[in-house]
């Protein structure tokens, strides 16, 4: 079977610092992978390299057997690679429905139409409603997105990712900054992701990692240092050292 996403020898440096150092990994359809690691390990950089926001200095990225290493971010998205952002990025002057309608229009090749057709409008609106309903956001369809609570905005961010009907979904700390009482909403949304999507999530909250992931990848100083099941990761002394080491290091600098 072709891997949904295969990365080989990916490298990126900023100045002399190797932020991504020879990273290779593979996601298959239906994968639920957590990417963890201490602060500054290069997790977001890795996601930025995969999504095309950053260009790598070396290595290759294959999406379902197709080399996307040199493609623009927009083309990667059209081929089925979606991501969310650590800090929510939404189309803030638009309504929730419009935020979700955009990727739906894009996916159906309607986004170039210079005139709106009522038939399309109704179909897109219905699909927006269905998707938002799954995330308990249906009542906000016509609400400007900036009027939502932060936790709900994170959900809209995920909804945009889902509306693209991706093959691979990268979630960059989906629960970060979400108030405690709204976190279950995010968990529920992630639990209900379509089973055939390959999902990789960056997360600090080990509780969430345990609930979500079948596999855990640990990144430290730009390298993948461990891969295994959540319980193996928790027990591994090397992973502990990486976390403790970085904390000790951080304290030493301060």
């Amino acid at each position: 079977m072709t891997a949904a996403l295969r990365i080989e020898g990916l490298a990126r440096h900023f100045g002399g610092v190797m932020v991504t150092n020879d990273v290779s990994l593979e996601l298959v359809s239906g994968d639920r992978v957590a990417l963890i690691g201490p602060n500054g390990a290069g997790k977001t950089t890795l996601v930025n390299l995969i999504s095309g926001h950053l260009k790598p200095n070396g290595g290759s990225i294959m999406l379902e057997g197709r080399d996307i290493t040199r493609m623009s971010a927009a083309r990667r998205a059209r081929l089925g690679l979606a991501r969310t952002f650590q800090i929510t990025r939404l189309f803030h002057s638009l309504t929730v429905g419009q935020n979700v309608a955009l990727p739906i229009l894009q996916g159906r090749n309607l986004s170039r139409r210079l005139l709106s057709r009522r038939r399309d409008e109704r179909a897109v609106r219905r699909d927006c409603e269905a998707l938002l309903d799954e995330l308990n956001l249906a009542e906000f369809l016509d609400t400007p997105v900036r009027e939502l609570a932060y936790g709900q905005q994170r959900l809209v961010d995920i909804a945009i990712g889902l509306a693209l009907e991706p093959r691979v979904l990268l979630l960059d700390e989906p629960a970060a900054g979400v108030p405690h009482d709204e976190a279950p909403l995010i968990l529920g949304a992630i639990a209900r992701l379509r089973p055939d999507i390959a999902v990789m999530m960056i997360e600090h909250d080990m509780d969430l990692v345990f609930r979500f992931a079948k596999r855990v990848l640990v990144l430290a100083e730009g390298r993948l240092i461990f891969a295994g099941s959540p319980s193996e990761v928790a027990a591994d002394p090397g992973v502990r050292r990486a976390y403790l080491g970085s904390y000790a290091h951080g304290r030493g600098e301060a």
Partner: protein
Amino acid sequence: MSLAPARFPMGLSIPLGAELAALAAVGLLGVVGYVVFPDDLAFLTRLISITLLVLSLDLVTGYCGVATLGQAALFGVAAYAAGNACIAGLTNPFLLLIVGMLAGVVTGILSGLLIGRFRGLQQLVLSIAFGELVAALANKLTPWTGGSDGLSGITPAPVFGVFDFDLYGRTPYWLSVGTLAIVMAALAAFVRSPFSLTCEAIRDDDLRARMIGLAVYPRLIAMYAVSGAVAGAGGALTAITTGVVGLDSVSFERSAEVLVMLVLGGAGRLWGALMGAILFQVFEHYVTTSNPYSWLALVGLMLIAIVVFAPGGLMRGVDLARRRWMRRRA
């Protein structure tokens, strides 16, 4: 109803509601102008061609977030193109409008190709450079522009072969009102299209737009082409209705002035652009005649008041007032 922001996907709405409302509203404004200012039809005619330029600016600045101080280039090139076509013997006013719109589209695409790659300050500076380049060319290419003397001798044939461009200025006025009404109706449909929605997404966050698969640069160029058609209609109207085209139609001052009108009315809204253009020019017209020495200062004070008290422009203020009123009724 028609003033509510038209949103895709809208759900229940009246078919062609926004478009018919635009036609009716502009027609009504035309009648009001005709009744209230019967002796100022030349001023109102000029006002309408500038209003088209403000609408065209709204498409790139309001809907796409492109910072530009060179929009007059699209207007001026179209005015010169229509003027030259007329002098060369193509005198049908409708064909001249089409010539102007095509010239506007070409200039718009060139402008978009140049400044669409950049954002923020670089974009602003490039737009000024583009505008200055076109202005310099207009000054030098005297065979086609008349240089600083302007291009004159533009005498279009009667509209429909019947209505002459007479001294009373009724024909140019109603031709302009009709053009504006049709453009407004077409734009009312256009701004709620999927394409326009993607432009608004690019304006809000172009990186995020890329991440949902939207190619930003081609879309900006496409929007510039539409914008050029609208600005071109305005430029062609000036040439047709006044019979002359001067360097002022490509000037930096023209570009800056229409940006002020757009901010005044509310960028990102068709009705904002329309109201801003009308109010600014009517205000300017009256203040210059009643107080020729300090009119610019009064315009400045008005702008400061708008930016301080209604930062989103006049249309935003209208929206807020309507919301408050609806909440009180509920």
